[in-house]
């Protein structure tokens, strides 16, 4: 992973500029993060059932793998919200689209193998049409159809579906972003518009005739077609894949937000009009970040859902995207590690509380079941974080590093109090 970083820093466009230190050295947090991620991955591998001593159960490995994917999408959210100031309530839709894209191939291929297997002993060898009909009946019987809808045209091909993982969210973000940014929709309006987009997408997928099995969604995704390895091993593969993706995504995001590009997008966040007056194409920058983060979200989704095993339209509902914003806000906006910490912390704690593992508290007259009260706790803590700790958990690191928010002599801190604008500009 460190190799990857050095390659990236070598190809850094401003490499010729008078900068003595390489990219990683100028951003020690990247190195620290990658080291932590590597230690975590190796540690989990050693403790796993598939490759190690078996202290951690396979289902928990999957939870950890999924958490890594959530961290990746939180990174994307941080880039688009914490750094560029676009509060998108649609990035979980991109996440879901990536999941659907890979899920179609997984489901198609696995069903094909089953169908071919079941027809192998028939008196006559099956025709291609018979195989295709068999697969379609298997997949779409649940919504009362027996033919492949047009959207499944490329489902048979893994490379094409992998391309779709990137292209589908990317194109949607590009078109939507272009429409929204060119008409100068900003702030809360943009948030509501992205939420509407998410709602439209999930409502569309909820229909049975959308061609994606309506509210049944795609299922059985945890079984990789043609792979006979047990789930304990497969789950480790996905954990490694997710860790690798997270590491690469972190480096990519850190690279994007450093240097001139990063300064411009932070400028857009703090005062869009001023950046525009300075001659920058604000829309272009925003569109680039929006699309890039959508692609990252799509990749994260493509890694997440094979571990979850099932994807359905409820996953895409607007509420999920808002939770994403919650994670990033609790973790600390405007710092990449903050997003990762927030996503990992909140989603793991959430799993702990809603999974029924948290002990109930008996008050004598009333017993607090955390399954019921967790969301209230989350909602209220969210309000408290917004009100009193705008820097989130990441703010703790500032105290450790003894960094302070620049004193503005009572001036308005702008739309985003959680950022460290002046100091970031110094780096």
């Amino acid at each position, binding site marked *: 992973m460190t190799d990857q970083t050095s390659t990236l820093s070598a190809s850094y466009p401003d490499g010729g500029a008078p900068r003595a230190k390489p990219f990683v050295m100028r951003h020690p947090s990247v190195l620290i993060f990658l080291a932590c991620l590597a230690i975590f991955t190796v540690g989990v591998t050693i403790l796993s059932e598939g490759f190690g001593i078996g202290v951690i159960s396979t289902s928990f490995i999957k939870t950890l793998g999924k958490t890594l994917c959530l961290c990746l999408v939180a990174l994307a959210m941080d880039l688009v919200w914490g750094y560029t100031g676009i509060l998108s309530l649609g990035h979980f839709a991109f996440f879901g689209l990536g999941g659907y894209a890979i899920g179609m191939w997984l489901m198609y291929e696995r069903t094909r193998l089953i169908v071919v297997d079941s027809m192998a002993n028939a*008196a006559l060898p099956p*025709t291609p049409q018979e195989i295709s009909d068999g697969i379609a009946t298997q997949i779409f019987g649940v919504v009362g159809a027996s033919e492949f809808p047009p959207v499944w045209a490329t489902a048979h091909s893994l490379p094409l579906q992998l391309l779709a993982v990137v292209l589908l969210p990317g194109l949607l973000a590009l078109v939507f972003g272009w429409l929204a940014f060119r008409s100068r929709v900003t702030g809360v*309006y943009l948030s509501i518009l992205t939420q509407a987009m998410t709602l439209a997408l999930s409502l569309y997928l*909820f229909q049975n*005739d959308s061609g994606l099995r309506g509210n049944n969604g795609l299922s059985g995704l945890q079984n990789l077609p043609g792979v006979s390895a047990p789930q304990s091993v497969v789950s480790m593969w996905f954990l490694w894949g997710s860790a690798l993706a997270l590491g690469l995504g972190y480096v990519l995001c850190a690279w994007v937000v450093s240097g001139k590009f990063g300064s411009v997008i932070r400028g857009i966040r703090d005062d869009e009009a001023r950046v525009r007056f300075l001659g920058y194409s604000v829309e272009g920058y925003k569109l680039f970040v929006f699309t890039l983060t959508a692609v990252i979200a799509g990749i994260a989704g493509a890694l997440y859902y094979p571990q979850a095993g099932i994807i359905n339209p409820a996953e895409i509902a607007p509420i999920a995207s808002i939770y994403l914003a919650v994670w990033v*806000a609790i973790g600390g906006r405007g710092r990449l590690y903050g997003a990762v910490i927030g996503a990992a912390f909140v989603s793991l704690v959430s799993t702990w509380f809603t999974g029924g593992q948290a002990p109930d508290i008996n008050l004598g007259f009333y017993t607090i079941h955390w399954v019921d009260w967790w969301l*209230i706790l989350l*909602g209220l803590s*969210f309000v408290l974080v917004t009100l009193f700790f705008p820097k989130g958990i990441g703010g703790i690191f500032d105290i450790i590093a003894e960094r302070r928010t620049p004193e503005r002599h009572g001036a308005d801190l702008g739309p985003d109090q959680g950022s460290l604008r002046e100091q970031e500009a110094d780096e």
Partner: protein
Amino acid sequence: MTRILCTLIASLLACLATLASAQDDTATDLSEIQALLQQHREIIEKSSRTTIQPAIDALADSGLPAAREVLEKWQAREMWQNEETGLFYFVEEAGEDADGEDLLKLFDIATREELETVLEDDMDQLKPNSGIRALMGAALVRFQLKDPSPIVRSGALAAIERDAEESHLATLRAAMGEEENAAIQARMQRLERLLTIRFGETDEEKIEAIESFHGDLGVDVRATLNPLLATRIMAAEGEVPEDPALADELKAGSEELPYDEAYRILVSNDLAPPLINRNDQKAALIANIDNGKVAGIEVASLDTDTARDMAYDALVEAGTVNAAATESEIDDILANFSFYTVYTATSPQVALAAAAALQSIDTTVAVNQFLDLTLDALSLASIYFLAAIGLAITFGVMRVINMAHGEFIMMGAYTGYVVQQIVPDYTVSIAIAIPAAFVVTFAAGVAMERLVIRHLYHRPLETLLATFGISIALQQLAKNIFGTQARPLTSPDWLGGAMVINDVVSISYIRIAIFVLALIFLGVFLFIMNRTRVGLEVRAVTQNPRMAASMGINPDRINMLTFGLGSGIAGIAGVAIGLYAQVTSELGQAYIVQSFMTVVVGGVGNIWGTLLGATLIGFLQKFIEWFNPSNTLAAQTYMIIFIIIFIQFRPRGLIALKGRAAEA
């Protein structure tokens, strides 16, 4: 005239007969009606639906005054027959005799005069089955149509409407002349025309009746006309032949006539060899596998349709299976034939007239459906307006985005539910619930403004997040308190039901009430904003808080009041929405995106904009649904996409603020 005369004479005779029998108890000569029944004794005793008709007809046509009663008693299984003499009597139960045998009291069927009391064992009850009773009912209609009571007459009309027969037409025509009640007369005339269409003798009178129904919305008219248009699909080699009954030409492979259907018609007319589908072909091939080969072709190579067709043809040549067309040959065969439909139910002229009438009816129906749709859209618009008006205040006037607005709606609905638990009278409870909901949500809104929002002015994105946190917490809290299942909020009886304008257009009273409520809200809002001191101060604070403050207005207090007002209105909207939707903890969530859309589309900071936005979105959604009525999900999807595109052209909404107010 002669008919009436006959009836008169007959009844005179009957009177005489009655007198005669009254004078002489032991009279052996039978009353006329008894004679009539004896005449048909055999089939009455047989009591079969298929053979009984002559007996019923004879009774009904006899014109005897007792005929109606005989039919009614017979139908009610109150007519018995003496086992020995075969005479018919009305009976009444008369208790038991000393030996415990059941006794029956007999009455004469012509005079209703009480006769002797006999043992039940000596008598047979006539037990017509339901089929026969229906025939009697049809026969009785003609008596009922002339009954002095209008209720019986309209009951008879309803019976004919339900189950008409040919004989009713003449009866109805006869009764029409004597009818005095205008409403029943109108109904009779309409029914007469309907029956004429079905049972009329000549085409001319049928066509005349059909034409009188142009543009009529009644379902009964459509039910009468549609069977006339029944067609059968015919096939002919080459061109479509001349046929007076020709209705339409069809193309094989079109929506009305898919290929396999067209081919099936050819096969059933012996115009083409039977089709063998892939499965049967496969079965035939499997049946003829011989030593790993089918007709000399390796089984392993039969993995394409072409190879299987070849193998099957080889089998045909070998004579093992019958020649059959395969699916791939259908097209070639079908190309040689033309398909058309002919009218089968009636003569072509009548069918054409019916088609024309139906077309004009369809036009009227479409117009009325449009009207119905407009009413639907209007009520949806008023719901959106109700849901959005509170938001228009907090978001539009204060520029504070409140994601918990939906939860205030939910809170109002639950307040209504709780009030109904305490106050059982629905009218009173609604009257209490509306102010109660306002108070509860007003307090909640003020608390939220004081505790959270006050600290976040000028940071809209963070307000969005903080209020969202509150929204999650409130939703879960409602779940913890009220459970996840839907709670009913029952509307008072006078709001139940619907206002039916005609067979197509109707609107439920609850929707009218919501529409009225929306209008009241609009009025109240305009009044507060434009005519009161508070409204003036709100507008001042909105435009320039500092200037307002220096004029002696306390912006803090005004903000608090405004927020409370917006939340309170959301609470009332919650009661209204709860009345027609189920109250769940997710009630508000369902409206929040649409509400924001309404405000944004309409234009922020302007109540008329919100009204316009709600109307636009309501109508849009209903009309998209109209194109695809089965799919409200798709309608919502397309509507949101439309709004996203709409924002492109009017980023500031339909009614945009101009000048300095726009920058505030």
